[in-house]
């Protein structure tokens, strides 16, 4: 139980830190982001309605003598009421609405691809570790190449081969916008279209992230296999599969689960840039559009939500870790 209490405390603190960081960044930056933002907005033919003024104050703090602390408190207040301001790129849509549209795409794509990649990497890594000292060792270095490939470049290559040259897969988008004029719907045809469009982006994530899992798991497996308890298990004449799975893999996999957070940051970073290549309508593209248009409200909101999503994923992984490693539960 102590383990869970500790982890939950940690995530509460991290949540607070992330939100505070999000609040502070616009205020710490050199220059006058508020003026840039307002100028940009007016140039686009916007009108400073009270609602818009409200949104700007939320982001940069109101003019006048409200102290930083008061701004901070009211920032939290609006956050709790789900107010992240109004986008100027998609005026007058509120930021929360835009993020709500983009979030499922990213969570679906990145989430699924990460799970596939993790399972594949840990599985193959365990196998490669078990087959240590054989020809398999010589293909391991190849996985370092995959690890070093920039996501977005791999995406460019995949697009040029499988979309531009062969035309097997669509180049952009998340579903066939011409086939489904009314937007997303619940039908098999639509799901098929989503999978068809998501295949290359998902393949990019899996290919670029699987190397890391694989290498880490393989090395852990090799280390674990030279532990005395594995030798004992072999000496007892246990079946080889039992030694491989129950004795070695289970223990060797623990660091992969524990190190999930580090790797997830990597995947998210890669995916944010990659979405641009595929024009995939997720959070990464939203963030990029916001940055392009100096739409600071949308940008800050998207960053906050990306952070929250990563925190949630890490938290989930910690819960799973507590479940698979009894030591964490007993010794906190």
């Amino acid at each position, binding site marked *: 139980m102590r383990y869970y209490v500790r982890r939950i405390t*940690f995530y509460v*603190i*991290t949540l607070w*830190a*992330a939100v505070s*960081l999000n609040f502070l*960044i616009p205020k710490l*930056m*050199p*220059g006058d982001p508020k003026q840039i933002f307002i100028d940009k907005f007016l140039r686009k033919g916007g009108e400073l309605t009270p609602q818009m003024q409200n949104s700007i104050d939320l982001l940069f703090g109101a003019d006048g003598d409200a102290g930083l602390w008061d701004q901070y408190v009211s920032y939290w207040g609006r956050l709790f009421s789900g107010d992240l301001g109004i986008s100027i790129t998609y005026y007058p849509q509120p930021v929360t609405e835009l993020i709500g549209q983009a979030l499922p795409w990213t969570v679906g794509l990145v989430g699924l691809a990460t799970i596939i990649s993790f399972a594949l990497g840990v599985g193959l890594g365990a196998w490669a570790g078990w087959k*240590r*000292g*054989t020809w398999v*060792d010589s293909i*391991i*270095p190849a996985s*370092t*190449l995959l*690890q*070093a*490939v*920039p*996501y*977005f*470049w*791999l995406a*460019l*290559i995949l*697009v*040029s081969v499988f979309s*531009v*040259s062969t035309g097997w897969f669509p180049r952009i988008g998340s579903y066939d916008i011409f086939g489904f004029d009314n937007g997303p719907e619940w039908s098999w045809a639509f799901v098929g279209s989503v999978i068809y469009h998501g295949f290359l982006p998902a393949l990019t994530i899996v290919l670029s992230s699987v190397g890391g899992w694989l*290498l880490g798991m393989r*090395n852990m497996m*090799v*280390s674990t*296999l*030279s532990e005395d308890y594995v030798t004992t298990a072999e000496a007892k004449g246990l079946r080889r599969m039992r030694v491989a799975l129950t004795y070695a893999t289970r223990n060797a996999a623990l660091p992969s689960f524990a190190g999930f*957070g*580090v790797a997830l*940051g990597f995947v*998210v*970073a*890669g995916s*944010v*840039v990659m979405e*641009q290549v595929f024009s995939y309508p997720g959070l990464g593209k939203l*963030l*990029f559009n916001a*940055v*392009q248009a100096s739409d*600071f409200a949308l*940008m*800050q909101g998207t*960053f906050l939500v*990306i*952070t929250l999503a*990563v*925190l949630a994923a*890490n938290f989930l992984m910690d819960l799973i870790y507590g479940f698979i490693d009894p030591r964490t539960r007993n010794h906190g």
Partner: protein
Amino acid sequence: MADDTREAELVTPAADAAPAATVVVDGIAPPDTTPGVVPDVPPGQDQGVPPVPARRGLRALLPRRSGKLTAGIVLVVAILLFTFVAPFFTQDPRSTANERFLPPSAEHLLGTNHIGNDIFAQVAYGGQGSLMVGLVAGAIALVLSIVFGIVAGYRGRFTDEALSLVTNIMLVIPGLPLIIVISAYLQTRSLLVVAVILGLTAWPGAAIVLRMQAKSLRSRDYVSAARVAGERTPRIILVEIFPNLLPLLTAQFLGAVLLAILAEAGLSFLGLGPSGSITWGTILNQASANNALSLGLWWWFVPPGLLIALFGCGLALVNFSLDEIINPRLRLGPAAVKSVRKARKAGVGAGDDPKETVAA
């Protein structure tokens, strides 16, 4: 086999901590030593070696010649040479005197881009920018990870709790989106500014690894001895603990360099990289913005990414070999399995061969 078991015996007690001393032994051993013959130093003598000075730790980075290490170093050095020497022989990468969109030819090895820059010159020169960002960011990340990792691990208690909390928070806050947001606020970004921002966000992973190691080192006898002798904490950290972490630090540094190069490429690809500079990322950005993909101008978008991947692969291969130093089991485990298999095969062969059986 005798060699291996001895090494295993020697190394295992300190496997997670101080392999440097042991590895130096095989590093020095002449390459033509017959395998199986125990090299010069008898096991007991290692304990008599005085605290390993930094230079020996450095030499420990060059253990037995492994194919992986050689391949990695060759890749890294070749690309470094290419980016720093090739620009002397190419055009000015900013020259627009050429025709636009030329395909590769003898004159323009990789053709020209949308404003007539020679792409080969850009790729060679752009590498300097990418590598500089990587090195500076890697160095900053290294210093920060030492502060947050080694100091936290060594000091323990409250310092550890506080520093670890910062590390863990930074670890779960996604780095690249944060960098994107910060970059968006900066109107102009020099190469150095980008490198600093990348360095400031690239350290937590390394800090966690270093903290674990420092934690296990601090309870070693020689560290306790130094403490009892009245050495001050900075000295203990720098003189006693540091050298033993050198292979690990190098690995973390190379990892951070790779991370920074990848992040810079991504950032530049989004148009948020160093303004006015040429890097591999900005070349890819221009290629993508000018439809190189649809037009099939592979010579424009393939080389920069390929160089990033190959350079990163080189770093990762060096790291892989470093891993085998830091954790000798990685080297000894496969070797042991291999020798068992070889022995078994030899045994089978002997059984099959009537002459050998008779002789036996």
